[in-house]
């Protein structure tokens, strides 16, 4: 991935990172609209400060921080929303663009991962962050990020193994 802050056109930059950022935000926020709000705020803050590639983890840290703030601020609404979504799963906007049943199974397996493993998988696979950048974004050590990634893959493999 090119240095995102070096893009003269923010639109190119944003179209490159937005899907991964949205997916990352939706680890905490069910609604796609709320996730878009969070991503918008985080990206604007990041773009204004014009961070370079070395600080890319800060963009994801900003998304995470805003998402956690959103949950705290709107806990009641989030609970109500979670209940409603559980009752009507069809209404949930999908996190992925699914092409077949295999991908649906894989997506479900990812969503069933523990949160701390899932966020590392999302940052590594769909946002191309290094373990160092993941560590910066999540406020953990690089070793912890790597071990969570390994645990996540192990869990996914277990889940996807034919019974």
């Amino acid at each position, binding site marked *: 991935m090119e240095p995102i802050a070096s893009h003269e056109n*923010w*639109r190119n930059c*944003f*179209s490159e990172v*937005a*899907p*991964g950022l*949205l*997916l990352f935000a939706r680890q905490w926020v069910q609604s*796609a609209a709320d996730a*878009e709000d969070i*991503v*918008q705020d985080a*990206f*604007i803050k990041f*773009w*204004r400060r014009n961070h370079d590639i070395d600080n890319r983890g800060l963009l994801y840290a900003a998304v995470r921080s805003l998402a956690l703030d959103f949950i705290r601020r709107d806990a009641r609404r989030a609970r109500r929303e979670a209940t409603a979504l559980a009752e009507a799963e069809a209404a949930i*906007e*999908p*996190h*992925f*663009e*699914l092409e077949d049943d*295999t*991908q649906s199974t*894989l*997506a479900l397996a*990812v969503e069933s991962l523990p949160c701390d493993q899932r966020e590392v*998988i999302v940052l590594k*696979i*769909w946002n191309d962050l290094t373990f160092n950048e993941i560590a910066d974004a999540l406020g953990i050590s690089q070793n912890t990020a790597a071990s969570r990634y*390994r645990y996540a*893959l192990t869990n*996914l*493999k277990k889940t*996807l193994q034919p019974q």
Partner: protein
Amino acid sequence: MNDFSELEKELRKLRPAQPSPVLFERVGEALKESRASASGASSKRRPFTQSSYSNWWSLGFGLATAAVLILFAAVTMERRREHQQTVAQSSAVPETRPAPLVTERSTSRGSFVPAGGTNLVYNARDEGLHFADGSERPVRRVRYNTQQTWRWRNPETGASLRVSYPSEEVVLIPVSGQ
């Protein structure tokens, strides 16, 4: 990690959902607004800077004026005090002494020349009639409390020296009987 390479490949095939086109418009608008507000803030800062310059100028002028006024007041007070001393001397003290010659000589060695002296009487007490030293004629004893000030000036450098000290004088005035 080789155990997971196939799984990683499968995961990468999953494509995250794309953001809505509206999000791009919203981000664009927000960036435009932030740029406008930043330039607005800088353009607002300019008149503030100008006014702050004028504030500094006015502060400078104010300080200069205050300094001049203080100097003027100090000079005026000094002159007034000298005038009062002269008045008090002429009214209460029977005589004005010039600076002693010894002092004059000693100061002249240091290029200082006498520039004047004052003898301010701030208290005069009449202690009544007395017969001094077995004299048959009475004398009136008057006690004066004074503040004597002597000034010297160096004409070459303009430096001045002032010595001031309190003194007490007892004057015996013969009383003539009729």
